[in-house]
């Protein structure tokens, strides 16, 4: 049944698919994990803050991001970032922002809202006594957060953070809507050029599938090693 197909198109274009496409996908994913978790944790702390303005802002931001599709957010930021850039450097005209930087900003801001809710649950899972113990030893808010609450919250949340990260890795493929050449973008450009849709999209599916399954397996093993003995 695969007689009419030419899977050689994959091997012929492998360097392009990996060096251009997959490199973009992986760099974007790693940067967004780091920035997303950092912003997300800050948002979670703001949301749990007793300062009303901070918690109201964080709540509004998180709810807004979570009720809009990622595709729409991608379009929003694609047009908004040049204006924000102009505002920062006081330029009279919108600034050009490269595809990569624009994607990093978009995904970090979007994922931060999802990571924030995970970290909030993680922080709330830490017994109040742990915070008291930190304070009672003379630690201040930031020290208590950084040394006592967040390390435990993070460990408790590893499985859900992982699930979210795999979803995010898959979602990076949506930069396709801006014609950016990530892994799927590269595959789709070849598919269109050579008319090899079947081969390229099956290949893309297999690659994503294998990466996601392998990563979940590895992290599940890692997680058993860092689990806290209670």
């Amino acid at each position, binding site marked *: 049944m695969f007689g009419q197909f030419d899977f050689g198109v994959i091997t012929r274009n492998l360097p392009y698919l990996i060096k251009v496409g997959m490199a973009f996908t992986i760099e974007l994913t790693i940067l967004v994990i780091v920035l997303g978790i950092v912003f997300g944790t800050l948002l979670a702390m703001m949301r749990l803050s007793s300062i009303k303005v901070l918690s109201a802002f964080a709540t509004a931001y998180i709810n807004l991001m979570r009720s809009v599709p990622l595709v729409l957010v991608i379009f929003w930021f694609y047009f908004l970032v040049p204006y924000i850039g102009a505002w920062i450097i006081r330029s009279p005209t919108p600034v050009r922002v490269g595809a990569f930087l624009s994607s990093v900003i978009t995904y970090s801001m979007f994922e931060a809202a999802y990571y924030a809710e995970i970290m909030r649950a993680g922080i709330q899972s830490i*017994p109040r*006594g*742990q915070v*008291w*113990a930190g*304070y*009672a*030893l*003379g*630690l*201040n808010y930031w*020290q208590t957060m950084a*040394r*006592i609450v967040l*390390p*435990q919250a993070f*460990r408790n949340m590893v499985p859900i953070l992982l699930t979210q990260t795999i979803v995010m890795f898959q979602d990076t493929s949506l930069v396709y809507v801006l014609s950016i050449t990530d892994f799927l973008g590269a595959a789709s450009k070849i598919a269109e050029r050579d008319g090899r849709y079947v081969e390229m999209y099956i290949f893309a599916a297999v690659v994503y599938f294998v990466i996601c399954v392998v990563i979940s397996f590895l992290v599940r093993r890692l997680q058993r090693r860092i689990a*806290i*003995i*209670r």
Partner: protein
Amino acid sequence: MAMIEIRDVSKWYGSFQVLTDCTTSVEKGEVIVVCGPSGSGKSTLIKAVNALEPVQKGEIFVDGVRVNDPKTNLPKLRARVGMVFQHFELFPHLTVRQNLSLAQALVLGRPQQEADERGLKYLDRVGLIDQKDKFPGQLSGGQQQRVAIARALSMDPICMLFDEPTSALDPEMINEVLEVMQKLATEGMTMMVVTHEMGFANRVANRVIFMDAGHIVEDASKAEFFGKPRSERAQQFLAKILHH
């Protein structure tokens, strides 16, 4: 001025009053035991002493520093007050050794090695030096509570607060913790202890405070309290606790 001064302290959770005009003090070197039925506000009162629970009315002083004053540097004050919790509250993600040295290094700025040595010295004094590289989850409840006491002591506190230190322990582990506390008392440490262990109070305390429904009902010397408490509530409480 006494080491701990509590003057006319009141506290509300919403419209529910948990503390009503509480006044008492702990002199330097004194050991006082706070007892009373659950929900009487004794845990809230002791947590108010190092401002873990804010109070809405009244004043609390520790070593002359006003605790419930927004200008007070709370971390600095708390670093000088040792506290032991009902549920130990060791940090489960850190080893025993790290639990002991964390605040010394972070708050007092002691070099890591000095903090380590000091922590281990106190760990030895509570008889657990063999456990230094274990995680809290690998220790029994009694051992965890002794580590928690060592952790508080390694900060060189001027006084110690104990919030029901034995009530989460299995009966056979209560004594090992009480012994450590008794030793501490004989060395002259100022201690405020919330506990139901009347035997401990009888052996160690200078004074006993009895609380009920947010009020300090009785504040008497040990002899007076165990001899003949004035209030009926305290008599009932003692009768229940001593005859079971």
